[in-house]
């Protein structure tokens, strides 16, 4: 544990927390300090207890959330166990993941004033604080608006302003960007970067999306699977120095670092390990062209280098599929012709034309409110499209009844809980089979086979709501699949999930895709799009801006920018490389040069790169 010279603002000692109803502690016995003005990043695999830990920092655990706590948390000399949440709120400001769940009032100004008003400050002081906080996040001009009218990123900045107005020297943020579009994420991190530059607040940040966060972090604290402290040190010590170790533990690294590890293995000299696209770019510009054979020291890296974003199954099966692409593209499975859709009093889709071929993996991207959800809902008949506008597998979606549709196209909603209608995981899957009037023992065998495949066999009798986030998502995919629909449509399947789970899910989808299922996903994660989608549809303001093979779409940086999106991190890092032109057109981690040993992936990736580019 690094002992800073200053008195620690936050002192966590041997902290262990067990939620009521749980049997294991997460976190378990964690100790660390945060000094005034320090920016600390808290990392750990999903379920290691990061959110639980952050709730303990301002006393919500144990005062508001029923849990058993061992060890101690001392903030600014106050033991959280013996101090009210209200009193601690002046020491610790909190920003949570869901911006909507942090709004209480009807205007931005009222919202920021809410905290100081609770502290019974005089009106003048309340207004002064509110103004200072709103100016700091750049929302002062919009103070009289309704928070609902802000974008997701704007609302999250408002939440930061609300925490700032409490005047607390420590700010705790739990995944503040988990469900924002790329521009929203940028907005939030711009606001945070300004705070850090001012240097008067300590920040504890929990974040899976390291690409954006890593730029201004001083220290990194890592929890392992069991919720114990695994590392605590500077960014250089922990992220750069122990990258391989963290990687093995299942902690996510920035995309640039993953790429760098892989490039190192291919013989590029990248020391220290780059963390951001800019750093990787710069490092590559100074790195010499690799010598074919890697040294013995590098073999250590070999073990961990396969990029986790891409499942190994995906790799192997890429080749046959690209062969069948052409013959099937001539018979589009889904055709959309001049589709316009009204919702409420306004038209949200304007004259959309789109074809999707059998067996394709299509990603639909666009800024918040671009009409992605509306489009896929119209395609799947969730919202009835005008007659004749959408055909799926020869069926007019505008005329078809629900049961016919559900046998042709499976739809997975953003929130899996909305879709659950049974009281056990097993019945959830069996429901779709029973609708087809199959005999009960066939229902059982088929449901069990599916649960097995999705790694849910052990939870068959649990209530669906009690599953973890990743498990819920897999179950919702299973329920959409079980009817045997040849098309699967997913609305933001990576929403609110950490990258490990997102990856696991996408691995599953590619597997299904390889078996012939047509997959359509809406997502904000550009790197995932680049890794998995054959084709990308970019939407803006209810229109299709462009639809084409993924590499071609992302090759047009101006268009991506115009759609309010950002290029995937790897592309930003490699694009326009002078020194290594062979890398400059690569966008996918799988396409990066690998260790020069003939492995299956070594064979597959050049083939894929050639086919795609």
């Amino acid at each position, binding site marked *: 544990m690094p002992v800073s010279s200053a008195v620690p603002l936050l002192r966590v000692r041997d902290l262990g927390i067990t939620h*009521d*109803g749980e*049997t294991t502690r997460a976190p378990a016995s964690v100790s660390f300090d945060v000094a005034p003005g320090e920016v600390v990043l808290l990392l750990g695999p999903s379920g290691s207890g990061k959110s639980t830990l952050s709730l303990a920092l301002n006393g919500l655990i*144990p005062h508001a*959330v029923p849990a058993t706590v061992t060890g101690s948390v001392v903030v600014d000399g106050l033991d959280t166990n013996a101090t009210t949440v209200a009193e601690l709120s002046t020491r610790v400001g909190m920003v949570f993941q869901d911006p909507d769940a942090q709004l209480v009032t009807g205007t931005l100004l009222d919202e920021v004033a809410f905290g100081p008003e609770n502290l019974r400050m005089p009106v003048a002081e309340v207004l002064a604080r509110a103004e200072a906080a709103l100016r700091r996040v750049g929302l002062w001009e919009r103070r009289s608006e309704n928070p609902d009218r802000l974008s997701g990123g704007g609302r999250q900045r408002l939440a930061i302003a609300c925490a700032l107005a409490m005047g607390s020297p420590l700010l705790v943020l739990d995944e503040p960007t988990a469900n924002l579009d790329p521009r929203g994420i940028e907005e939030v991190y711009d606001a945070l970067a300004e705070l850090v530059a001012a240097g008067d607040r300590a920040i504890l940040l929990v974040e899976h999306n390291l690409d954006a966060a890593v730029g201004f972090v001083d220290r990194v604290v890592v929890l392992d699977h069991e919720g114990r402290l695994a590392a605590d040190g500077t960014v250089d010590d922990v992220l750069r120095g122990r990258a391989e170790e963290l990687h093995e533990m299942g902690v996510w690294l920035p995309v640039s670092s993953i790429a760098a590890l892989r490039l190192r293995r291919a013989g590029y000299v990248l020391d220290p390990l780059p963390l951001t696209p800019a750093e990787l770019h710069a490092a590559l510009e100074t790195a010499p062209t690799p010598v074919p054979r890697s040294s013995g020291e590098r073999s250590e890296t070999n073990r961990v280098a396969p990029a986790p974003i891409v499942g190994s199954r995906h790799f192997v099966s890429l080749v046959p599929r690209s062969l069948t692409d052409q013959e099937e593209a001539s018979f589009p499975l889904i055709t959309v012709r001049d589709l316009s859709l009204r919702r409420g009093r306004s038209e949200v889709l304007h004259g959309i034309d789109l074809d999707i071929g059998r067996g394709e993996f299509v990603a639909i991207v666009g800024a918040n409110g671009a009409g992605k959800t509306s489009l896929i809902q119209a395609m799947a008949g969730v919202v009835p499209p005008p007659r004749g506008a959408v055909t799926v597998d020869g069926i007019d979606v505008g005329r078809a009844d629900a049961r016919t549709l559900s046998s042709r196209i499976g739809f997975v909603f953003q929130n899996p809980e909305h879709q659950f209608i049974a009281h056990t995981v097993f019945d959830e899957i069996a429901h779709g089979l029973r609708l087809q009037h199959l005999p009960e023992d066939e229902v059982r065998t088929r449901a069990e086979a599916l649960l097995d495949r999705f790694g849910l066999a052990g939870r068959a009798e649990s*209530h669906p709501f009690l599953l973890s986030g990743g498990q819920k998502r897999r179950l919702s995919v299973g329920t959409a699949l079980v009817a045997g629909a040849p098309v699967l449509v997913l609305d933001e399947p990576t929403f609110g999930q950490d990258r490990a789970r997102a990856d696991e899910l996408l691995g599953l989808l590619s597997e299904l895709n390889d078996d012939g299922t047509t997959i359509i996903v809406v997502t904000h994660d550009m790197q995932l799009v680049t890794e998995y989608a054959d084709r990308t549809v970019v939407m803006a303001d209810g229109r299709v801006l462009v639809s084409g093979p993924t590499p071609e779409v992302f090759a047009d940086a101006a268009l991506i920018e115009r759609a309010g999106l950002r290029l995937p991190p790897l592309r930003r890092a490699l694009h326009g490389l002078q020194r290594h032109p062979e890398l400059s057109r690569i966008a996918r981690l799988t396409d990066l040069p690998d260790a020069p040993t003939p492995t299956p992936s070594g064979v597959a990736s050049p083939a894929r790169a050639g086919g795609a580019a």
Partner: protein
Amino acid sequence: MSRSNRAQVSTAYLLTCAAIGVAGGIVLAAGWWISSMLFITVPLISVAIAGLWLMPAVIALRLIQRPFAGLLVGLISGLVLAPFFTVGAIGTTLWWALFAELGFLLVLYRFWHTWQHYASALIVSIVYPIMAAASFDLWTIPLGMQIAYFGVTLVSCFAGTWLGIVVADRLRKAGVAKLARRRTPVAAAEPAA
């Protein structure tokens, strides 16, 4: 261990009741339209969904098992309905919630058994028809219908209470409302199933 300031109820309790109230209000809004339509055409049948009015409060009391949860839920669902059904809605929902709460209020919240819900339902199904009869002038309808009117109310109130209990139990099974729920020693030992 948890020393909260004064003996005040938690924010989670208040907002959980608000959420049940709002969700209940949304469902009640649908019920209200149906009952208004019925009221205009066949007034007697409109009491068949009287039990619906009991449901939100029953769900809250069963799920949270804390004093006044039913009344708070009644207040909130009334407030939600008020813009669409006038301020009188607050009175209506509070009135029904009070009866749902009665079975527990009368024993000063010493214990929480299932039969108390049904006792509440019994009381309200006697009181409501009498009060409604006074305001709608039901003493002018034939006696047989008056008896049917009481019977339908009784069945409806019991059905509403039963449904509320079923919903609350399902929610509990789904692990919902842990923050607001009365914390029993059993809850801490409950295995993660």
